[in-house]
């Protein structure tokens, strides 16, 4: 389908004029790509904001009266501003005569509008059955039924339990024997096992049983394909070849197709993989948090008797919590920017040390998002490594690299290029100051010394968007290119941001006003000195 046709269908949807066939076409198109959904959102935003403006200003009544007073046939443009400044008296909109007497309009007798019958008993029943506001496949435990239905359901439930027990016994017979290992400790970073328990080395096979780590990160591989990063301190139990129980601590699981439905059990929840990558954390208070980075998971709560309470299917970018009672919280939220999950072992290595001073922190872990309003604080900016060893296939323009001070309006005249074939590491500096009401926005000052020479700094909005594809960190959500522009890079204006590249060629100093959220991308030489010919 062409974009033009899709736009027509979206407008048809907004006016509720689509045939069933067109609705299906639009639905399929929307599901085809994230960009389609974003275009849909942009168009609907115009629609809803027009409606909002007309409602807020009561512009309709103003135009109505003006048209009547000014003889609409003249075709003059109405001064909407004056209509707002001098609002005419409201009129009864229920019995309003035709607004325009334009000659070309041949009016037909008006019919009364059809209204939808919203009194639907079946729908009401459904509301009772699905009370939980979690929204996605959340089932209420108690539903009004007749006694006969209740008994029938009891018998049915008993039969199902019996079948489940038999199936369970059968399944247990198919799983590896207790002493048969199905997990390998593939790697560790500073992993320290508890002295009182098993202390396997890297490369060892892990038998079913309990394990306790005191600190560090271990990477275990299930034979069926699940890869799990266990972030100490944590206590976990290997139960079968596609499942583990996390009693305390946190982990991130990445699932291959062979390990579909990989399950993490916790004291109050079951987290079942429906996609590819998710994190689970069991807190000291017994609550379970599940965060989805890619794909989907089914987060199911249960009480102390293992009776299921409710569940939610979480999509990528969202997280949900099961509290200590086993109840899923009434709302899921976006994964915060500063989430505490380690997603790759490389996250913890970071052998290239940055030297920081001022209002900046080094985020060694992959952020979930750097979109606006997801992580905003007056206190500090954040710098993190995006990608390493990126070889430039062609020259990269629109960068600055000569030592000196730069303001936004000076960037264009001082742009340089990084030559093709260069291999670079990319870092992103993110500052999203709070802009809530009554909040004084702070100017952040910081100095960052990078471990190798700076080859280029990207500090303008357009180039930031253009280079996202090349340097963006996998798994991190970047700002959308809605409206074609944004406010990334350093800011112009009276309180302009100031960027300084120090004479050593490895250090930058920033003064960021915090008026808009700022992104600065720093590209450094990825090869250590002496590595080149």
């Amino acid at each position, binding site marked *: 389908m062409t974009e033009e046709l899709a736009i027509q269908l979206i407008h048809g949807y907004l006016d509720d004029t689509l045939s069933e066939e067109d609705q299906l076409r639009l639905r399929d198109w929307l599901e085809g790509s994230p960009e389609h959904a974003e275009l849909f959102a942009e168009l609907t935003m115009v629609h809803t904001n027009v409606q909002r403006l007309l409602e807020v200003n009561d512009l309709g009544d103003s135009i109505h009266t003006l048209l009547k007073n000014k003889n*609409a046939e003249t075709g003059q443009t109405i001064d909407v501003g004056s209509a707002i400044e001098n609002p005419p008296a409201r009129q009864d909109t229920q019995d309003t005569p035709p607004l325009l007497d334009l000659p070309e309009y041949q009016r037909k007798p008006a019919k009364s509008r059809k209204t939808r019958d919203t009194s639907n008993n079946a729908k009401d029943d459904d509301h009772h059955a699905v009370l939980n506001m979690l929204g996605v496949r959340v089932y209420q435990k108690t539903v009004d039924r007749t006694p006969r239905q209740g008994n029938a359901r009891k018998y049915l439930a008993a039969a199902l339990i019996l079948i489940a027990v038999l199936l369970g016994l059968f399944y247990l017979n198919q799983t590896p024997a207790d002493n048969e290992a199905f997990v390998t400790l593939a790697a560790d970073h500073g992993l320290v096992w508890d002295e009182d328990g098993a202390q396997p080395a890297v490369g060892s096979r892990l038998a079913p049983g309990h394990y306790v780590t005191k600190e560090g990160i271990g990477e275990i591989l299930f034979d069926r394909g699940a890869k799990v990063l266990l972030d100490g301190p944590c206590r976990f139990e290997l139960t079968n070849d596609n499942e583990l129980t996390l009693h305390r601590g946190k982990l991130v699981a990445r699932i291959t197709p062979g390990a579909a439905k990989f399950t993490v059990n916790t004291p109050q929840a079951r987290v079942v993989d429906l996609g590819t990558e998710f994190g689970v954390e069991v807190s000291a208070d017994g609550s379970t948090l599940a965060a989805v980075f890619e794909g989907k998971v089914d987060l199911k709560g249960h009480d102390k008797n293992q009776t299921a309470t409710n569940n939610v299917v979480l999509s990528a970018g969202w997280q949900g919590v099961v509290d200590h009672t086993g109840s899923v919280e009434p709302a899921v939220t976006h994964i915060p920017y500063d989430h505490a999950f380690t997603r790759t072992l490389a996250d913890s290595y970071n052998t290239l040390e940055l030297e920081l001073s001022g209002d900046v922190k080094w985020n060694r872990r992959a952020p979930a998002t750097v979109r606006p309003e997801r992580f905003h604080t007056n206190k500090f900016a954040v710098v993190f490594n995006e990608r390493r060893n990126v070889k430039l296939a062609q020259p990269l323009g629109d960068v600055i690299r000569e030592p000196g001070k730069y303001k936004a309006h000076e960037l264009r005249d001082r742009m340089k290029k990084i030559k093709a074939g260069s291999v670079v590491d990319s870092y992103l500096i993110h500052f999203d100051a709070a802009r809530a009401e009554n909040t004084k926005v702070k100017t952040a000052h910081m100095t960052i010394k990078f471990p190798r020479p700076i080859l280029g700094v990207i500090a303008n909005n357009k180039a930031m968007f253009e280079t996202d594809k090349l340097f963006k960190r996998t798994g991190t959500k970047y700002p959308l290119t809605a409206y074609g522009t944004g406010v990334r890079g350093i800011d112009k204006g009276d309180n302009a941001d100031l960027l300084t590249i120090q004479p050593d060629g490895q250090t930058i100093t920033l003064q960021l006003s915090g008026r808009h959220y700022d992104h600065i991308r720093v590209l450094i030489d990825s090869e250590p000195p002496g590595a080149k010919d």
Partner: protein
Amino acid sequence: MQDETTNREKAEGMKVESVARRWAGIHPTVLSYVRSMVNRPEDVEDIVQQVAVAILSDNTPRPDERHFNGWVLGIARNRVLKYWRDEKRHRVVMFNTDTIDRVAAYYLDNLPRNSLVIEALEQCMTRLTQRARHLLELRYVRDMKPRDISERLGLSSRGISVTLCRIRESLRACMNERMQNAE
């Protein structure tokens, strides 16, 4: 120490007064989001009301303030999902979970720019012709569908639909141009 403070704030959540104040700020965005996903006005009102009740309920655990907007849009998103699940028996389900999530994310991402968007759109609307504004009034203030408008004005329903489409597209183009200049 900072972590302890954050954890305590997170555990306590936001006060009701603070929630009410923040709700007033995000209400227009929630309304817009729900309107975009649900094209029946009576259902939109129900859903927005349900969201308000949910976030102001004493039984609802609340997040700390910085996650408030995402939390509220998350609730709205859940309500929209539930709505379409309930509608499944009556009509074609227009959106799957991914689409609903993506549109919610779009509205959340654009929150900081809302005032700019509204300002740009308001300016663009002053440039509309008399007839275009009249059609918008019928469509949005009187909440008339193209068929009703066509009957009222004696024009074809298709012609009204096409004109409304063109008006909104011209507004979108104008708004984008102004946004680019503003930024």
